[in-house]
């Protein structure tokens, strides 16, 4: 009964699914980081109109489920632009836009813990506001933000599970395929769940070590969920 566990075809599916999951998460988090930084800076230094637009963006992506955002991306965008787009590509973008909404909050929070004094110090040595942001504020903010960032990564990984419903071949989709053939349901989900667990826990541990190594002695972000 359990020789399905050694079937190389299934492991192939699983590994493929896992790699898709990881790709989407990584891309999403990276895009989220870049866009989130822009949003955070825009929110701190922009004019009222820009700040309002950012607020609407953030409220949309943080206030509605990623699940629904995925549906919108997959079913509404292609017909709107009148072209066929691979669901995977749409998934990358929707995850990135969503993550940016959350990361803006983390990055802005981190920036504001240090902004006042470090900005003054930067100006006092003759650097411009942008130079100070680039060489002093952001390098520190990114280090402060690592724990929140790790959290965001875990959260996003778990959310990739919804992509199976729109036909993307992720890890959950692999599980569905296997159980459809073998009729072993509980063990398959235990295995899939276990793989997620190992991946997420492993990644968190690595990020924790990175944080320990690179964190700035003397500042910890006030951890409020």
């Amino acid at each position, binding site marked *: 009964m359990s020789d399905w566990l050694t079937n190389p075809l299934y492991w192939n599916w699983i590994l493929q699914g896992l790699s898709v999951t990881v790709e989407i998460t990584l891309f999403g988090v990276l895009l989220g980081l870049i866009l989130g930084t822009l949003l955070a800076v825009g929110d701190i230094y922009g004019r009222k109109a820009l700040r309002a637009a950012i607020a609407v963006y953030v409220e949309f992506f943080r206030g509605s489920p990623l699940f629904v955002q995925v549906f919108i991306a997959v079913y509404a965008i292609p017909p709107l632009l009148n072209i066929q787009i691979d669901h995977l590509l749409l998934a990358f973008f929707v995850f990135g836009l969503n993550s940016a909404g959350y990361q803006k909050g983390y990055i802005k929070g981190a920036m504001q813990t240090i902004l006042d*004094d470090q900005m003054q*110090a930067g100006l*006092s*040595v*003759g*650097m411009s506001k942008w*130079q100070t942001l680039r*060489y002093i504020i952001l390098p*520190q903010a990114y280090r402060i933000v690592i724990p929140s960032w790790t959290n965001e990564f875990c959260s996003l990984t778990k959310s990739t599970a919804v992509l199976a419903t729109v036909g993307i071949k992720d890890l959950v989709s692999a599980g569905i395929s296997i159980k459809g053939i073998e009729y072993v349901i509980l063990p398959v989900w235990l295995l899939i769940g276990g793989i997620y667990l190992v991946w997420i826990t492993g990644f968190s541990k690595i990020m924790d070590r990175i944080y320990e190594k690179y964190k700035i*002695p003397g500042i910890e972000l006030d951890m409020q969920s």
Partner: protein
Amino acid sequence: MTDYVMEAKHVYKTYRIKGEKKGDVKIVEAVKDVSLQIRKGDIKLIFGPSGSGKSTFLRCMDMLDIPDKGEIYLGDECLTVKGLDLNKARARIGFVFQHIYLFRHLTALGNVELALRQVLKLPKEEARKRAMAALEEVKITDCINKYPAQLSGGQAQRVGIARAIARQPDIILLDEPTSALDPELTGEVIDTLRDLAHEGTTMLIVSHEMPFAREVAEEMIFYDEGHIIETGSPMGFFNAPNTDRAKQFMDRIINRTTR
């Protein structure tokens, strides 16, 4: 061609503090028609009761706070003119903060080098040489690769001073450089400032370190409630201030200082 390194002309600065309740706003007139001239090599010390606005005035000199009215001159250049590239001007002024404000993510050496590379655009070698020279002047040699959190208060502030002098600015402004330090650590900072003074550095200091004032300052300026009340030599202030307010203040201070 002006004689002065820096000049303040009829500067005004007011700021608002939000109170606890909604609509509660306290208005603080920190700088009320203050004018000051500083020549090359001057060492002037501004002192007075806390909350009088001395720090605000000093920050106006560096345009870290923008004056509401009046003019600030760095040499012949007017800094309060709209649209001026303040960064270039600030590159010629060194500022030392009460709470130090070192760049936390950089080592001591990195803190001093950063502006040399990014503002003066010096090449790596040259920037390093000048940074090391500045650090040697403040007698920091063995902890140059430490991070601010690993330095003592006195060491950190000396790095702050090195950071300010590395660009060889026209003038150095110091805002209560020793006030945030533990008493045992103020000595090393005061020694550093004394050395700088003897080398002819132009300095404008806000401080209430009276012993330092007596030794090093050439002119003392008593500042209270937004105004310059009296100026004079240290001897003059310690022996016989002219105004009553200065007298009261000096009495209180001298009774407290036990050196």
